[in-house]
Structure formats: C-alpha cells, structure tokens
C-alpha cells in the first residue's frame, strides 16, 4: 500500500514537471546544423560568424520565435568544430545530417570550407544558407540547395580598380596608365578577388606589374613590399584574411610604402586601427556591410541599431567594430526565419523553395537569390580608414565621405 502511494506521488510529480516545462517552453525547436571553424587558421572569423548566428537566434526568440503553421519555434544550432580543415568539414556535415538528423544547415566560415560541405548538403538535399562563402566557384556548379546572403568575392576589391581609374582620369592621365600590384593568398576566396581585379584591370587596359600569392603561414611580406618600392605601382591590392591585413599594415608602416591607393580585405576583423593606429590611415577596405549604411528591417532595426544591439549582447566587441562577418551570419539566420514562415512548413523541400523565392530588405542589405543561389541584390562597399574611422567612399551612391587620394 505504501509502495502504491509512493508510485502515485512519483507519477504526479513527473506529470507536474512536464506540465510546467510545457508552460515554460511553449515554443518548439527547429534544429539546424553547422560545422564551423572554432580552431585553426579561420578561427577568428569562424567565431565572429558563430556569434552572429547566436545573436540572431536569441533576438528571434525574444521576438516571438519563428511562426510555422500557427505554432512558434525557436532555432537551435548544433555546432561542430571543423578545425579549419576541408575534409573535416565534409565529415562533420555527413555526421550532422546522418547521425544528428539535421534537416537544415547554416554555412561554415570561408569559401574553401563551404566548397567542402556543399557537395554533402547537395547529396542529401539539405537546404543550407551560408554567410561566409563568397567564392564564385560555389555558384557555377549547379547547386540547388545552397543560398548565400553575401556578394560574391570577385566584387570585393574590383571597385578599387574603378576608383583608381577615375582618379587617374581626374588627373589628366588615361586609365590605362595605372599600374596594379596584387598580393593575395592562395585560397579560393582570395584568388577570386584576384580574378575580379585582374579582369577589371585588363578591361581598362591597366598593367599588372606584381602578381604574387601569399603563403598560408604569412608573417612577413617584406619581399613583396621591396618590389613595390622599386616598381612604384599606383594601386596595391592585398588579400590574405586577418593575418594578411595585420602583416600588410604593419610592414607598410615600417617600410614607409607610398602607394597612392592601397586596398585590402579583412581590416575590421584584423582590427588594424586598434593595433597600428595612424599607420592604417587612408587604406581602403572592402566590406560586405557597414553600420553607417541606410539599410533597415523590423527585427534588427537599422544597420546602426544592429551594431549597438550586438555590442550590448557581446560586450567584448565594445571597443571595436562589429565585423561584417558577424552581420551577415545574423542575416543568414534571418533569411531562414523568413523562409520557414513563408513556407509555413518544416518540410525541407518546401523550405528550399521558399528560400529561393526570398526577396527581403534587412539591416544587412537587400537579399534576393539568383538561380545559382548567390545574392544579387546587394552591392559591395569600399571604406577608407580616415583618422581611425571607417568611412564609406565607394560606390558613390552610398559614399558618406570624400576619398583621400593620394595616400600619404
């Protein structure tokens, strides 16, 4: 008899526990998988991206979650660390899909890693929204399940070529008189940048006088900069992720390199202003996004509001810029939310179709996918570091400041 009361008590207790849990978490869960670089050479930006994902998820949860079929859901992401290695990324994607039964994926960091994972998600027909793989080689393979919120990478620094041509013409010289020096890392992303720059340079009849590939473990580029001193190019293009930016700015200062226009990538994530101060002045930085742009959406507010919101959620970013890698990661999650709601279903095929029909305005810019899956609605922006501030100088439609030229 005593046993029975105990049992009833236990059942009652468990039942109560369940009902309470039911009240507390009235929203269901949508599980998304992501293999992302938390260690290894891409870890800096991998972590930036992860925080972007997490911020979006908490913001969506605060604002009532994702509404599908009259029910509300919250996103939950299973992260695995791909160690910045492509083969590891592909293995982890397999594991997420076949063992963790993930039905949707968020992208990894870098084009190389995305390229490694895309064949897997494609094989299992798993829709993947990615925010950090900009290589155009991702979008000429006929993939149907990959959607990228960012501009493709050959556009990153191509606008610097146009800008250099404009400046040459203003000074009474033909555009073809501009001499270009290119130093990019030997990875898919940076090689696309090189392709974009060389194409534009060739179209304008410019001469490429230095064309070098940076090694993976770069910490010294004096050999290139010596050549720059000797050959005096008018435009210097450098792309090698964060370490490329740090090495370049440090040694450009030390070696007192006087090139009228220097354009690099990853200025923000490498925090070149915080590290080198005035040395970084007048360097052009390409960016997918800037908090001064006039983009806006109902969830995150304006680009500027996104930045303040993110900084209060992650105080370690207080003293620096929120990198665009973070903003676009947030945008990727937002695109998923929008697609789920329009599909009004958790079926992955329906979600895929909704994704491909995406047409939204966000704090990160307009998002509309081509048939190949890249975002064709948002332009790249070029900012110049002026007195330690990042000011938009190109394209002219978004320019808030005048370009300082030539660089001193």
């Amino acid at each position, binding site marked *: 008899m005593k046993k029975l009361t105990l049992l009833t008590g236990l059942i009652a207790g468990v039942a109560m526990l369940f009902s309470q849990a039911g009240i507390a978490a009235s929203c269901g869960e949508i599980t998304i998988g992501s293999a992302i670089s938390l*260690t*290894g*050479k891409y*870890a*800096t930006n*991998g*972590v930036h991206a992860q925080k972007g994902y997490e911020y979006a998820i908490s913001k969506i949860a605060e604002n009532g979650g994702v509404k599908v079929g009259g029910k509300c859901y919250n996103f939950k992401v299973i992260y695995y660390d791909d160690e910045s290695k492509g083969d590891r990324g592909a293995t982890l994607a397999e594991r997420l899909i076949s063992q963790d039964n993930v039905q949707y994926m968020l992208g990894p960091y870098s084009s190389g890693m995305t390229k490694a994972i895309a064949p897997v998600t494609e094989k299992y027909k798993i829709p993947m929204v990615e925010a950090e793989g900009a290589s155009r080689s991702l979008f000429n393979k006929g993939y149907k399940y990959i959607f990228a919120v960012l501009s493709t990478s050959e556009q990153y620094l191509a606008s610097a070529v146009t800008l250099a041509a404009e400046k040459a013409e203003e000074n009474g010289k033909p555009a073809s008189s501009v001499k270009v020096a290119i*130093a990019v890392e*030997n990875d898919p992303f940076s090689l696309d940048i090189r392709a974009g720059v060389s194409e534009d340079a060739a179209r304008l009849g410019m001469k490429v006088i230095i*064309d*070098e*590939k*940076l*090694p993976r*473990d*770069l*910490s*010294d*580029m*004096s*050999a*290139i900069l*010596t*050549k720059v*001193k*000797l*050959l005096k190019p008018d435009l210097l293009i450098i792309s090698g992720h*964060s*370490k490329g930016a*740090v*090495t370049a700015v*440090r040694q450009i200062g*030390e*070696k*007192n390199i006087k090139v009228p226009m220097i354009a690099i990538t990853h200025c923000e994530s*490498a*925090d070149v202003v915080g*590290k*080198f*101060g005035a*040395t970084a002045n007048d360097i052009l930085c390409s960016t997918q996004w800037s908090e001064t742009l006039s983009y806006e959406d109902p969830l995150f507010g304006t680009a500027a509001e996104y930045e303040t919101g993110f900084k209060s959620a992650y105080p370690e970013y207080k003293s620096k810029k929120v990198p665009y890698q973070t903003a676009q990661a947030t945008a990727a999650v937002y695109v998923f939310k929008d697609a789920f709601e329009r599909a009004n279903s958790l079926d992955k095929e329906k979600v895929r179709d909704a994704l491909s029909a995406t047409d939204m305005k966000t704090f990160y810019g307009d998002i509309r996918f081509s048939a190949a899956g890249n975002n064709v609605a948002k332009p790249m922006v070029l900012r110049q570091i002026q007195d330690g501030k990042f000011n938009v100088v190109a394209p002219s439609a978004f320019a808030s400041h005048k370009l300082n030229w030539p660089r001193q």
Partner: protein
Amino acid sequence: MDIILGNIDLLFEFPIVNLKIILDGVMIGALFVLVAYGLALVWGVMNVKNLAQGDLVISGGYVSWWLVQQGFPALLGVPVAFIVMWGIGWVAYKLVISRVIERDLFTSLLATFGLAIMMAQILNLLFGSDTQSVDLGYDTLYFADGLIDVPIAKLIGVLMAAVLATGVIIFMKISRMGQAIRATAQDARAARVMGIDTEKVYAFTFSLNSGICGAAGAIIVMVWLIQPFYGIAYAIRAFVIVTAAGLGNLPGVIAAGLGIGALEQYGSHIFGIGYQQAIAVLLLLIVLIIRLIQQRRNRQVLK
C-alpha cells in the same frame, strides 16, 4: 618564368636591394637561431626531438602580448616571457618529457607532437584565435633613399636575441650546471656514474630551452605577429637549422640560422613569397642528402 627573370633583373638593376634582402633575412634569422639553439640543446642532451618547439615560442609571445594588454611596457615582456616559459617548460618536463626520454624516437616525437597540439589549443581558448602583434611605436631608420629600412623595434629585437644567446653560451661554458649539461650530452651514463644528477640536468635543460623560446616569442610579437597556430612555422625552421648545423655546433647553428633567413628572403624575392616556406623545406632536403653522402661510410646503430 618572365616574372622570375624580371625579379632577378631587379636585383642587378638595383644592387642595393641585395643588401636589403640580406639585412631582412638576417634579422629574421637571428630569431630562428635562438629557437634552433634551444632545440639543439634538448636534442643533444636528452635526445628528444621537440616538435612543440614552435608552440613554446608562440606561448612566449602571448605572455608578452598579455603583459602589454595589462599596461606594462613591451620590452619587459622579454624577460618575463623567459621566466614564465621557464616554469611552463618545467611543468611540461615533469608531466610529459621525463616519461619519454629513455624511449625510442617515435614515442618522443608523438609525445611532443601531442604537446604541440595541446598548447596551440590552450592558447586558442585563452586568447582567441586573432592574429596579435605589439606595436612598440618606434621609428624606422632609412638608408639609401628609403630603399633600406631598419625598424628600431627590429633592431632592439635582434640585439636582445644576441644578448640572450651570448648569455646562454657563457653560462654553458663556465657555470657548474652548464658543465653538467655538456657532460650529460656527451654520455649520460658516464655523467651519472660521476655523480651528476641527470634527472635534474634534463629538467633544467628543457626549462632553459622553454625560456629561450619564450623570450624569442616575446621578441617576435614586437617585430612580426603571432597566432595560436603559427608554431609549426618556427618548429620547421628550427629543425632545418639543427639538421644542417649538427648538434653541439653553435657557430654552425648561428650561420645556418642567419643563412636560412637570408636565403628565404632571396627565394621569396625571386620565386614569389608563396615559396618562402617551400625554400626552407627544400634546404632541409638538400642538407639531408648531403649529410647522407657524407656519412655513407659512417654507419651507426639507432639508439
């Protein structure tokens, strides 16, 4: 091919560039010498091929970088990194290295490789994966129309490396511990018979190596940059230098270190910077082949 020829032409068109390349190379080489010397010490005394050498360097860099973040002057980082890394080296010795000294080659390689991975990940967890660098804010000296540039920070770094190296050499020559280390390197069993506490010598040697690496890392963070996963670049070069110079051949280590620095710079000038590390590895290959030919009559059993 045209580009390579053009690069060689530049060397003749502006002869002063040769001097600049050698100077750049020697300044980098000086740091390689420090790291390689520590490796030669550990290798020679305890026959441990320390693959974690580069990670000891990077850890030293982070010690110095952290100090600067706390508001201490950057130059203080070098002695502090030496001391802190000495301690870390001692702990690593007691935990890992002491267990693999008497074992075969592969055990020590595996153990130190494991140590290297551990250290890189711990640094990554502690400090994040950002590339870090300390700007001393010193000026740069220019010569020959600004073609030759010698940042004062680099000069200080090289000087500190020279002071440290000299200090270690004198210590090895005259102090009792230095003598004990050399005796152990020559014949550990005989040293034990003569009453030298080889266990203590081993612990001291590894800690000393770790301290040297730490100081080198502290200099590197002032002059170049560090990242938790950059250790391997320094480990590879240290191995190349020690293999080329041989153990216990200090002038050889210095010459090889400075030489590799300069050759890498030449290589990256002529073939492009992407081949910088390939040149270090190519040199290793050449050195090994030459050694093999030299020693073809001098066969030994593996210990």
